[in-house]
């Protein structure tokens, strides 16, 4: 148990411990959905929302259902089930209230279910032994960090459309390289704040 404030954890999760750029989690939809700016923003918002909400639910489930019965080993399956159910709910919401975003996200909306960043956040939250508010800060921060990364990448890819990229590097290859450069740049934040 540490006593870092939730706000610090939030900032750390966005910059120094960016879930995507330091842990390299959630790469699949990051690479696939960063082609168009609006789609990237939409997916980022959806991931942030799902991440924050599932962190809260998973925290409650873990500490008030699994721990009292000494069932910590069930965390993987239970977290995945909770995330899957929650994504279903978000899907219904979007379909009802924003069909355009629903169809723009297409297959990637249900794929948030298996976005490892979301499961990763839930598992880190347990590993780091966060309190409730710290967990919320971490979840929201990781979501915002992921969104920041994908939105930056969408902007960069937009610029790269007019760049003269050698044929073997076009597409995913150059995206991976640029992601690596972005990760290096984010390392400049290291030491600003720290969690764990």
């Amino acid at each position: 148990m540490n006593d870092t404030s939730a706000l610090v954890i939030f900032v750390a999760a966005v910059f120094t411990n960016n879930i995507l750029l330091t842990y390299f989690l959630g790469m699949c939809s990051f690479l696939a959905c960063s082609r168009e700016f609006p789609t990237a923003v939409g997916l980022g918002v959806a991931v942030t929302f799902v991440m924050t909400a599932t962190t809260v639910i998973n925290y409650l489930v873990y500490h008030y259902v699994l721990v009292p019965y000494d069932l910590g080993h069930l965390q993987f399956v239970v977290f995945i089930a909770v995330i899957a159910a929650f994504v279903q709910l978000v899907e219904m919401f979007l379909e009802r209230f924003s069909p355009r975003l629903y169809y723009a996200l297409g297959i990637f909306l249900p794929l948030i279910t298996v976005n490892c960043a979301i499961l990763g956040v839930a598992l880190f939250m347990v590993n780091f032994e966060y309190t409730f508010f710290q967990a919320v800060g971490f979840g929201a921060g990781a979501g915002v960090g992921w969104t920041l990364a994908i939105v930056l990448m969408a902007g960069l890819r937009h610029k790269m459309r007019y760049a003269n990229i050698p044929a073997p590097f076009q597409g995913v290859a150059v995206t991976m390289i640029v992601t690596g450069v972005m990760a290096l740049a984010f390392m400049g934040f290291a030491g600003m704040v720290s969690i764990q």
Partner: protein
Amino acid sequence: MIYLVSIGMFVGLLAALALFLIAAERFLLNYGICKVSVNAGERVLEVEGGQSLLEALNSQEIYVPSACGGQGTCGYCKVTVLAGGGPVLPTELPYLARKDIRAGLRLACQVKVRQDLDLRIPEEILNVRLYSATVESTHDLTYDTKEIHLRLLEPPQIAQRPGQYVQIQAPSPAGPVWRAYSISSPVHEPNVVELVVRLVPGGIASTYLHNLKAGDPVTFTGPFGEFRLSEEPETEIVCVAGGCGLAPVKNIVETILVRWPDRPTWLFFGCRTTRDVFYYEKFRRLAAEHPNLRVVYALSDELEPGEKWDGETGFIHLSVDRFLEPGRKRQAFLCGPPVMVEAVQRVLEDKGLAPKDIFFDDFGTGAPQGAAHAASTA
């Protein structure tokens, strides 16, 4: 003990989540009853929200044509949605031209009924009914083509125009599929629907139809198709058929002979060998009785040694070119494989026919009519 608790807890959590989702679905995806207004209030349907527009219309006995059964792969189920349809979806884009989108055209199978809708559906489609029929007889026309007579049970009559088609329901392991076949029986026989079906190896519908025996029940919807025979008796009718494209042409010719016995009419039929020829005697007899009906059959392959053939040879568009003198007022109906349709179309345009007077059906590979689908998709 730990195992039991683990399993019990896990199952309990899953059940709770499932219950929660079911409740959420009830609450979120319940669109209630939606009003669908068809053709400016001509008909107002009340349908359950949440289903696809195609399902909703089918449940209200409006049979919008659909060959793929609502999977968004055939592009037949186009209807005009003026209000309440939401944005055009990426799944529809391959089937809609830009001007279609401007006009509000949508694929009914992709539009979900979420609110009140305002639709325009062609009068034609509103007249489409679901028919149950029984097989009266079948007989072989060639080694791979069968003529199938269906006697209508409910409703007992069909009001068709020559050149139209019906969609036969054929069972398949993945649920029933619908396939289009032209009606080959003439308009003045409203109690029967006759089909000419060519067996396509591996084809779901053609295999099903070829295996039917007298007395078997058949379900179909129809009639579909936009061809309208010119009502002016002096307009010459030119029918060009390839393979089982002869089905709608038989209907057109027989209908013309009853309504306008002296109307100038051309029937061109192209196929490969003498094995593929059918209805030749029948049409020659009709031509002998009606001097204004001219029948031309042409074989594109070389004759086998010892074979006799008194018709034409060469591709059918060459015969069309040879027989028709240019400059007459004509209407043409072409039905056959795309290559044939394209070649004949060029010849007819050279003869002075306007594109609007050339109606074609290239077995569903581009024309919206899609009759006699047997050759390409069945």
